[in-house]
């Protein structure tokens, strides 16, 4: 029995039967202002039972199968979700590990770069020190050489000018008397050297 028919019967028993009241101005009447007549209730209830029975008999397996399929689908989706979650967690773990590896690698690279930079810096400083020392040594040598050269050139210039001065003085002072004295001196010296 359908819920609607049962409810109608209970209400009919509880509520007193009403007097016939006119339905409209054309003279149609009803037994109760709210409930249908009993036979209509019976027929409707029966029809409802039949319909619900047929529905239960024929539609129930389909509905059950539908619910079952739906449940299975949901379960499958849950399983898939769980699997996906597991995969995602695995992936997350892997990513975290990879991130950790990356962090470690980055740290290692940073450390290696720092070490290389330090080594380069140390090497560069050492090389610069060597080059500076070499440059200083070469500069000292160049300065010494330039000083020696300048001194040599100065000595040569002094010698040249001194020679010129002596030559000039000699030329100015070598008058005929002196020339004759030099010649006589030569003759005397050669003659005495036999």
């Amino acid at each position, binding site marked *: 029995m359908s819920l609607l028919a049962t409810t109608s019967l209970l209400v009919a028993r509880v509520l007193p039967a009403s007097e016939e009241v006119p339905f409209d101005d054309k003279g149609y009447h009803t037994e109760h202002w709210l409930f249908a007549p009993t036979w209509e209730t019976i027929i409707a209830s029966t029809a409802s039972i039949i319909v619900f029975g047929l529905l239960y008999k024929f539609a129930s397996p389909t509905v059950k199968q539908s619910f079952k399929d739906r449940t299975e689908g949901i379960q499958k989706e849950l399983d898939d979700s769980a699997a996906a979650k597991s995969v995602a967690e695995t992936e997350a773990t892997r990513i975290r590990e990879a991130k950790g590896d990356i962090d470690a690698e980055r740290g290692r690279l940073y450390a290696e770069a720092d070490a290389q930079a330090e080594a380069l810096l140390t090497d560069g400083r050492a090389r610069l020190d060597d080059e500076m020392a070499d440059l200083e040594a070469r500069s000292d040598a160049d300065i010494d050489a330039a000083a020696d050269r300048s001194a040599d050139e100065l000595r040569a210039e002094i010698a040249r000018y001194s020679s010129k001065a002596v030559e000039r003085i000699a030329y100015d002072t070598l008058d005929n008397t002196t*020339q004759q004295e030099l010649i006589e001196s030569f*003759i005397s010296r050669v003659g005495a050297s036999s």
Partner: protein
Amino acid sequence: MSDARIEGYARALFEVARAEGTLDEVEDELFRFARSYESSDALRNALTDEHVPAEKRQAIVEDLLGGKATPTTIQLVSMVVGSGRSRELPAIVDSLVQRASSAKQLDVAEVRTAVALTADQQARLKAALENSTGKSLNLKAIVDPTVLGGVVATIGDTVIDDTVRTRIDQLQSRL
């Protein structure tokens, strides 16, 4: 110029001078001209310039020596210059002097002074050099202002140098 060619010219000049009987004079004049040629850039350039015709160069020689040297000397120098051997003139003359000295059993003594030597000085210097070297010498006196003062004598490979120039050079070397 090869030594043989120089010797050939020297022998020719020697024979001409000896044939003319003016060997001593020609030898002396040629020697002095050769020294002048060596010390004068202008003379050397004039006599060796191939763009100047040979006749012109010979005329320069005749102008320079005319009245100052014997005709034989002038003709011999003119002959050497005209034959285009001006560059070898000093070597030819030196060879001639050597040849003439050898003919007289003498060694050549080349003496350079800043001022000219008197005949007396030449005689005394020759005697002093002969006394010093033990050789009979044919003295050739050259006035060379570059020696500044004093005397330098060259006898073969022997050089007796007492010039102011050499002393200045030695002083410069020491400096």
